[in-house]
């Protein structure tokens, strides 16, 4: 109790208040209001935690965990730690859980748990282990701490209150760990940015211009895309090979899976005079007119 440096600070009215509080409740017992708050918030926190583990939908799990964290924050406030209570609500339910929800929505809401057991009997073993751990912890605690005397927090009695006491501790006795957390936070931010951006840049789609430049630089096997199948007056099947300008078959246009249809070059036509065609038609039209 006297381990803190600030216990040496002047305390004006606190001993009298503590004397009154101690007289109101038996030693080791909390006040009635705190007991009511505990018996309301504790079961809510437990129910939220159980629901989080057993909810099939991940979004329901996140919301139930938010309920648990909110009630824990209220419990902190009941336990003379108002700063931690508000930090819990702001940081955990406000920031962390919303981050979880964002990631859940990005990943896809319907990516629910698989029911397949990869390890045989793993769920049963996990349940047995969990019940054993709970029994061990609860039994040990209940046996070891039968009546924990409730010592009022002296540091809360300094004029600055809980936040001032915490600030004094953090910036005097725990200054070095506090500075270390800054390094931790910077490293975490850098790591998150690295993980989030490095992959998306590698997987970015090339633009059309970049593709063309890569082709001209010789990064592809050929400059132009592969020739499509031949489309001729006689056939437009994908099994028809394309012809190169010199009339030979372009081998790259042939499908390996389909049996190719040979291209039969049409017999060379006699060169026609276009005027002869139109002249014949004109003669026919004239004959028709004469017949009428």
């Amino acid at each position, binding site marked *: 109790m006297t381990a803190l440096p600030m216990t040496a600070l002047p305390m004006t009215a606190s001993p009298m208040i503590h004397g009154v509080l101690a007289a109101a409740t038996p030693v080791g017992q909390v006040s009635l209001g705190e007991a009511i708050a505990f018996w309301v918030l504790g079961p809510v926190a437990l129910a939220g*935690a159980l629901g989080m583990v057993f909810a099939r939908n991940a979004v329901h799990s996140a919301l139930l965990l938010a309920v648990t964290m909110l009630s824990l924050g209220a419990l902190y406030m009941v336990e003379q730690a108002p700063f931690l209570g508000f930090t819990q609500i702001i940081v*955990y339910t406000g920031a962390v859980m919303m981050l979880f929800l964002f990631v859940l929505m990005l990943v896809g809401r319907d990516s629910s748990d698989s029911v397949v057991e990869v390890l045989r009997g793993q769920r049963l073993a996990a349940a047995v282990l969990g*019940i054993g751990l*709970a029994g061990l912890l609860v039994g040990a605690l209940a046996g070891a701490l039968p009546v924990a005397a409730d010592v009022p927090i002296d540091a809360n009695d300094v004029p600055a209150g809980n936040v001032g006491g915490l600030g004094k501790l953090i910036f005097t006795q725990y200054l070095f760990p506090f500075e270390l957390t800054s390094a931790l936070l910077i490293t975490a931010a850098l790591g*998150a940015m690295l993980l989030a951006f490095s992959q998306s840049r590698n997987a970015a789609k090339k633009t059309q211009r970049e593709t063309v430049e890569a082709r001209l630089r010789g990064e592809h096997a050929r400059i132009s895309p592969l020739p499509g199948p031949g489309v001729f007056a006689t056939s437009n099947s994908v099994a028809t090979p394309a012809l190169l300008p010199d009339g030979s078959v372009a081998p790259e246009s042939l499908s390996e899976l389909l049996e190719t249809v040979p291209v039969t070059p049409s017999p060379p036509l006699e060169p026609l005079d276009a005027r002869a065609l139109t002249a014949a038609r004109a003669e026919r039209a004239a004959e028709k007119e004469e017949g009428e």
Partner: protein
Amino acid sequence: MTPTYYLLLSALLFSIGAVGVLVRRNAIVVFMCIELMLNAVNLTLVTFARINGGLDGQVMAFFVMVVAASEVVVGLAIIMSIFRTRRSSSVDDANLLKY
């Protein structure tokens, strides 16, 4: 009731979180169970601070919150990058480190 009840509640929450880590397959839900375990430990720290009449436990809980926040950021980034390559957030599918 005595302040010990808070410790019992915290022990129960910690056990539930541990069971969740072992049972659930969705990486994000596993992560939420880890958060629950951290919260349970925070409740223990705050309760011990109150029992001992000092603020050191609250300072520890404060540092745990800082570590948990940075852990969430990095962990969710890892889960997102695994999801980008594997198209799945199940811990059973992430059985190779590289791909």
